[in-house]
């Protein structure tokens, strides 16, 4: 039996690619193929040419298979295929060839359409002698499944299904049972019981412990993992319409938070794994795409991703050493499978709309409010009663309506895949085209991918991947405050039109209006484009030196050509000559070479050893050049002819850095139960100086597969139980190059006679710190994986503790000493938390399936030491003129990302008039807690007023399949964080930026009659600070992120249409959000994505979208 199965497996491996290639053609012939006795007309028409010397018969048979759609079934114990022959055929039919190839006395053959059975002489007679059974084996979705092993139970007799999933067995006893088995599928046993036709639908194995996952510099079986790795496969997200990688990851991996801070098309998202380790920022994980370290993920097409592994603990990430501290995301793109050529076409169209708009004053209410304020401060009214009542008859201008619109997304992908047993290819072309919900914003992506693997020799194979994209976007930057279309639309005067007929230009903000330009002007005439051509390619050789010893070398290149042209048209009312246009261009590349020696073997059946030694080097070079001009005689050419401007400036720059690494890993497994992993990496980086250049990052892990212990194996309910523990060090080089060098600041020019002839000025520049060293994170992880109830319920639980020391921080230098920041290694912080993942299969029948999974992570971040300081105040990289003092505080014992400001204490009421007067204030003015009681609200009165750090984040995915329908629901949430609603402050207009409020909230302002409110009254004295607790809100939310309903067309309907498969679906994203947050969306943030100190400030950010999608996936 075993031998037979081995034969079948061998056969299967040899033929699988072929089988799949054939599927396409065979599909059409599916019905006729079922008629097993039909004559093989293919065999009578197909001709073959061969010219081979000194080859085995086996090789001849392969050659025939490669040239044709034939494949051979035989038992190599009975047929001698190792005999060497010399043959020459020209355009001959297969039976002719076989007759000459085999000795007629020994081998007979039977041609059944495309499969040819070779039997010893005499066998043929037996083939049809007795009871025969035929049938089709399909997978869960009804697709024919080739290569399924069909064995008569208790015998060595059997076969495998052919390309169309059919099998044919003869010489059976009527009482026999057939056993159907296939990798990744549940084995089924079916009694023949007299049936001549047995159709089988194979079900997927639900326990995924044999699943293979990518780890750093290799792959491993999930059951062999010692570290904490979350994996997401294409099956998890391919049914939903997404065009960004981050969406594929969002809510699907415990310990990973994906935040979408902007609704702009193509805008980046913020990904954090197990919190933020670094104060200085970039806490973005390291991305590794097909082995290329530090690859770009923005341009990836999620449809081309086969799997994502998220490495979280130090045992998994320490292999990435100095860049592993923030976790590592390994992305493997789809590789080809040998088999029949597949063509897949995937298309969807989405409608995007703004998820929520602000409730703003109508034009007449606005005018009344302006008058009321002027009156309160003793000035003449702006509008007469007549003007207001006339305006009341019109709608005025709804600026939100003018600037926000419905956006749309079109996404198309066409892919081709397939190959022979030695060479496989996956080719894909994609187009994504998004129009944003803010006027004149868009994102487009065109991508081409080539993934090719080929086995050149028995011991030598080559893999090549290349991905090239061109992306183009307009005005999809992070909007911030009143200086952009999205923010200006919320505060611009609703009583004036978009266009000023008299001036023949966009209207200007009236003197009583906000300090802002016309929002439609902003959107249409301020153009910030981004055009990027990126290419990443990697070539890898694997040599098998001897059994178990493999040497591999890979070389990769990642190139970026970025062109960022802009056109800043002169604002209405300004002379057109001040229009500015220019280009910022970046040309950068990154080369990587990885050399790896890997040895793995099993000794004495119990000792499994896997050792890798790697040398890796990477260089990064970036060249920048820019040109800018003003004084254009015409702006008709936009930014396309900057030379037209009469004042022109140019600039250029260069940066480089390099990294050299030595690393090794040892995996040892004893008896499949006790697993040990030790890794070590030494990184040398050019960013550091002298002795600090090299950093060393060791790790160790142990896992115990308790479920393989005899005492557990008796407990039938438990199928998998594994305990994991790991500890290790990782690093972060979260600094830019040249921080150890003292650079001068150029461009400090001045003209001594007030002409344009400026003299060149050079000032002392960025302060240097030659003592900089690595920021190091030590992480301990304890984890438990389990699978019970035959895989119906599985999950994992992890606890981790991370301590980051030598924190790299940009310490503020006082302005009296030149200002700016100095990068230092200061202090330490910790992150600790739990992650929990649970997946359940609730129903698993052929017609009805329901599975659901939930993940939850809670991270606690705490600053332990700030190099002797107890508090550091910082803007965290978010600069905004609305803050009087740094809005964020770093304090020992507290998490990072803490807001700091005045504590709002209600409004001064009339009975407090005397106390208010001590502050120079009157009833109705904002009151704050005066900590130092100096009768003035100053910086000393500022306190901690909120935290952007959530208590926990969670995601919940449910998939339901009923017949041909499938439904997936994805809900996610964040709990316990605060959001600083700067937008609300902006539109209430009580602060120092906008004197004309547009929010309807102003109607509820304080008056002697309306005292129960937090909206200050109009007075000469009031200041409502943006930097106060009044604008800090609860940012918790529960979001219905995605609902997708799909319909897969039944197989027999498709045959007529010559399709292999087809699925049609509708989907809604961000259908609703449950939140107390009063702004558009609590996830929106104007702070830079790289900063974790500065987060959670919503200041007129590009709004969030709600999306409805219709999509189609078809395969040929």
């Amino acid at each position, binding site marked *: 039996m075993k031998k037979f199965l081995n034969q079948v497996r061998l056969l299967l491996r040899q033929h699988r690619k072929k089988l799949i290639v054939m599927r396409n053609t065979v599909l059409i012939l599916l019905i006729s193929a079922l008629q097993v006795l039909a004559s093989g007309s293919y065999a009578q028409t197909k001709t073959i040419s061969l010219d081979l010397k000194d080859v085995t018969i086996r090789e001849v048979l392969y050659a025939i298979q490669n040239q044709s759609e034939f494949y051979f079934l035989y038992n190599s114990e009975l047929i001698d295929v190792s005999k060497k022959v010399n043959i020459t055929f020209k355009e001959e039919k297969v039976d002719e060839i076989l007759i000459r190839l085999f000795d007629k006395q020994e081998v007979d053959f039977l041609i059944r359409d495309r499969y040819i059975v070779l039997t010893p002489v005499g066998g043929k007679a037996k083939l049809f002698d007795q009871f025969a059974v035929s049938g089709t084996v399909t997978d869960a979705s009804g697709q024919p499944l080739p290569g399924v092993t069909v064995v008569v139970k208790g015998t060595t007799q059997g076969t495998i299904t052919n390309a169309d999933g059919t099998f044919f067995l003869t010489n059976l006893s009527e009482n026999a049972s057939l056993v159907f088995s296939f990798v990744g599928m549940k084995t089924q046993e079916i009694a023949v019981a007299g049936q001549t036709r047995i159709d089988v639908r194979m079900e997927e194995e639900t326990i995924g412990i044999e699943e293979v996952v990518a780890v750093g510099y290799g792959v491993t079986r999930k059951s062999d993992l010692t570290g904490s790795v979350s994996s997401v496969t294409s099956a998890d997200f391919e049914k939903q319409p997404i065009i960004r990688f981050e969406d594929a990851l969002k809510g699907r991996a415990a310990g990973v938070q994906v935040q979408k801070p902007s609704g702009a098309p193509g805008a980046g998202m913020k990904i954090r794994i197990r919190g933020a380790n670094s104060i200085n920022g970039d806490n973005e994980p390291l991305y590794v795409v097909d082995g290329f370290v530090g690859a770009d993920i923005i341009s990836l097409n999620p449809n081309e991703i086969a799997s994502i592994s998220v490495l979280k603990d130090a045992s998994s990430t320490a292999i990435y050493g100095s860049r592993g501290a923030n976790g590592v995301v390994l992305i493997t793109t789809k590789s080809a499978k040998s088999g029949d050529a597949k063509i897949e076409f995937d298309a969807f169209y989405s409608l995007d709309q703004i998820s929520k708009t602000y409730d703003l004053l109508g034009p007449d209410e606005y005018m009344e409010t302006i008058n009321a304020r002027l009156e309160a401060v003793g000035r003449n009214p702006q509008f007469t009663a007549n003007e207001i009542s006339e305006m009341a008859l019109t709608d005025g201008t709804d600026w939100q309506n003018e600037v926000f619109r419905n956006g749309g997304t079109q996404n198309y992908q066409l892919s081709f895949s397939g190959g022979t047993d030695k060479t496989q290819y996956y080719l894909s072309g994609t187009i994504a085209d998004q129009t944003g919900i803010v006027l004149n914003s868009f994102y487009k992506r065109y991508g081409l991918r080539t993934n090719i693997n080929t086995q050149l020799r028995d011991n030598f194979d080559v893999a090549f991947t290349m991905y090239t994209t061109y992306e183009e976007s307009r005005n999809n930057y992070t909007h911030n405050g009143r200086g952009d279309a999205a923010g200006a639309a919320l505060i611009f005067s609703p009583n004036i039109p978009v266009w000023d007929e008299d001036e023949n230009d966009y209207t200007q903000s009236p003197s009583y209006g906000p300090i802002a330009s016309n929002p439609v002007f902003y959107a249409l005439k301020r153009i910030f484009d981004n055009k990027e051509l990126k290419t990443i390619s990697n070539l890898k050789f694997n040599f098998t030196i001897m059994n178990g010893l493999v040497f591999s070398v890979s070389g990769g290149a990642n190139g970026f050509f970025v062109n960022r042209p802009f056109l800043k048209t002169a604002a209405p009312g300004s002379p057109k000559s001040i229009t500015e246009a220019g280009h910022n261009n970046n040309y950068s590349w990154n080369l990587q070479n990885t050399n790896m020696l890997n040895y793995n073997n099993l000794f004495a059946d119990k000792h499994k050893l896997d050792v890798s030694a790697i040398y890796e080097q990477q260089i990064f070079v970036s060249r920048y050049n820019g040109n800018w001009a003003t004084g254009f005689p015409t702006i008709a050419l936009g930014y396309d002819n900057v030379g037209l401007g009469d004042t022109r400036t140019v600039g250029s720059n260069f940066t480089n850095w390099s990294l050299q690494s030595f690393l090794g890993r040892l995996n040892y497994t004893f008896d499949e139960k006790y697993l040990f992993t030790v890794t070590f990496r030494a990184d040398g980086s*050019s960013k550091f100086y002298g002795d600090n250049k090299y950093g060393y990052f060791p790790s160790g892990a142990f896992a115990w597969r308790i479920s393989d212990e005899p005492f557990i194996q008796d407990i039938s309910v438990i199928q998998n139980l594994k305990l994991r523990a790991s500890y290790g060090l990782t690093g972060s080089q979260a600094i830019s190059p040249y921080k150890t060098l003292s650079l001068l600041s150029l461009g400090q020019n001045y003209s*001594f006679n007030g002409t344009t002839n400026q003299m060149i000025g050079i000032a002392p520049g960025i302060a240097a710190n030659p003592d900089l060293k690595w920021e190091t994170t030590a992480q301990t992880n304890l984890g438990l994986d389990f699978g019970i109830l035959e895989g119906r319920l599985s999950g994992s639980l992890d606890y981790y503790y991370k301590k980051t020391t030598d924190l790299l921080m940009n310490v503020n230098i006082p302005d009296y000493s030149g200002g700016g920041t100095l990068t230092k290694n200061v202090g330490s912080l910790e992150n600790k938390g739990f992650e929990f993942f649970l997946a359940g299969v609730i129903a698993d029948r052929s017609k009805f399936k329901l599975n659901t999974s939930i993940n939850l992570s809670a991270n606690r971040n705490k600053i332990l030491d700030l190099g002797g300081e107890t508090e550091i105040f910082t803007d965290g990289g978010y600069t905004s003129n609305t803050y009087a003092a740094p809005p964020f505080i770093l304090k020992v014992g507290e998490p990072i990302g803490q807001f700091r400001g005045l504590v709002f204490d209600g409004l001064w009421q009339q009975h407090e008039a005397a106390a208010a007067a001590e502050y120079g204030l009157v009833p109705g003015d904002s009151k704050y807690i005066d900590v130092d009681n100096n009768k003035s609200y100053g910086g000393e009165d500022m306190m901690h007023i909120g935290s952007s750090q959530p208590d926990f984040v969670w995601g919940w995915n449910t998939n339901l399949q009923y017949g041909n329908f499938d439904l997936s629901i994805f809900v996610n949430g964040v709990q316990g964080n605060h959001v600083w609603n700067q937008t609300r402050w902006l539109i209430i207009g009580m602060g120092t930026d906008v004197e004309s409020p547009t929010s309807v909230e102003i109607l509820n302002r304080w008056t002697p009659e309306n005292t129960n409110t937090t909206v200050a009254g109009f007075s000469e004295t009031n200041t409502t600070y943006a930097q106060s607790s009044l604008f800090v809100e609860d940012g918790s939310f529960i979001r219905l992120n995605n609902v997708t309903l799909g319909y897969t067309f039944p197989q027999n309907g498709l045959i007529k249409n010559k399709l292999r498969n087809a699925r049609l679906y509708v989907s809604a994203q961000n259908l609703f959000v449950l939140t107390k947050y009063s702004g558009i969306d609590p996830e929106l943030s104007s702070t830079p994505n790289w900063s974790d100190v500065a987060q959670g400030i919503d200041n007129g950010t590009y709004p969030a979208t709600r999306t409805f999608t219709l999509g189609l996936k078809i395969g040929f």
Partner: protein
Amino acid sequence: MILMKPYYRKYQIVFLLVLAIVTFSCLDLEEKPLGSLVNDSFFKTESDLEAAVTAVYRPLIQDPWGGFGSTRIWLPLMGADDLTTLPGGNKGDYREFDQFNPTNINAALPGAAWKNHYDLIYAANNVIENYEKVDGRETFINQCVAQARFLRAFAYFWLTRVYGDLPLVTSVITDLEIELSPVSSVYELIVDDLNFAKDNLPSSWPGEPGRPSSWTAKSLLSSVYLTMAGWPLKDESKYALAASMAKDVIDNGPYTLEDNFADLWTMANEKNHEFIWTIQMTGIPGNPQLTTIVGYPTMPGEESGWDDVFFEVGFYNRFPDGPRKDATFHTQFLDKQGNPTVTFENSSTKHPYIAKYRDGALSWLDSFEHLFMTGRDICFLRFAEVLLTYAEAQAMADGTPNNEAYQAVNKVRKRAELVDLPEGMGKMDFRDAIIEERGWELAAEFSRWFDLIRTEKVEEMAALKDPLDLEPKGTVDKTKYHAPIPYGEILLNPNLANSTQYP
């Protein structure tokens, strides 16, 4: 293909070795900042030094919305009786000072009087600390150092009048724990710097009016001495020094009064014989040397202006009529074609606006550059002030005004079409008349607040507020003479919190 196998096998080791050698070539881990200049290689040649000196001027123009060339420059001077702002709306930063209630979180203060000034000081220190490394002609080097020291003195003079005690930074090496130095130490440095400047600067810079000459240094030094003689140092010995320094400038310097006061403020005449120390601006688009004290920021709402800063009504009423008054106040508001629409009394704010800086920002004029930015030079010291400084200092030093003092002040009054000051005035009456004269002559320039604090007249003038002007909040006393040091700086160095309260 298959036939090649044996050959491949034979050579695969060689192939592997070659591959290994190629790929294992050692990587260079040195940084190459090819696009940047590194400090160590700088300060070698005269042109290095010249570039470093140019960078000292840069902060003068760096920040057109918050620094020297912006309306914010008036922010800490708003307590004077000449300028005020809107009662409500987004002018809170100005109101704090106008109403004697400044906070240390005033968002505009660091730009108006801290960051840009200290940036200048930092760049100047860079020159003063490193010039010895330069191999060059001695005179050239000394002129470079003298420019840096003049500019440093100019910045410190401004800062100490605004804040009093200061971190007296004289090095580019960061001192995070520096203590405040008393006003006297700050003036010591200022006087030292200006003396060096006056001795080493040339008497003129042909074609480069933006550089200080020895006469510029002497003129500024006369103002410094005059200020030292008043509050808070009250070192009366400095009156004589102020007088002699000013006298030298008057008798031997290249400056004369412009005949017609209004001509001082036209764009066409911005390079003239009366301006002594100006920040050079240029209005060519794209060039960053622009000022925003023109146009919208200082124009009335009726002219689409932003009403940032305008004159107090009380000050206007006290101001003597004549061509100087006409050229100082903008009282008749115009439409976009320049036709009168409303007088200030009937306007929304009921206040007169600044006329001095309108040219260049009015769209119907040839000089029009931009509605809220122009290349108008900003004058920080002009000859009329030196004349008045001399008159005051002489009277205070000698106990009675002499003939030349009368001549000096009467020259200024004459141009304003005012009668001469009466003969035989006592020294205090004479001084008070001069202070008044300075207020009118230098209205909406940068002198009034500093004149009021050094002569301790702030309380007196605050009491004269017109009902239409903003009322002071709380009591006006000497604690309001100095601005609070910006809170952001105190956070970084708590030693800056305890400034001396001068009596």
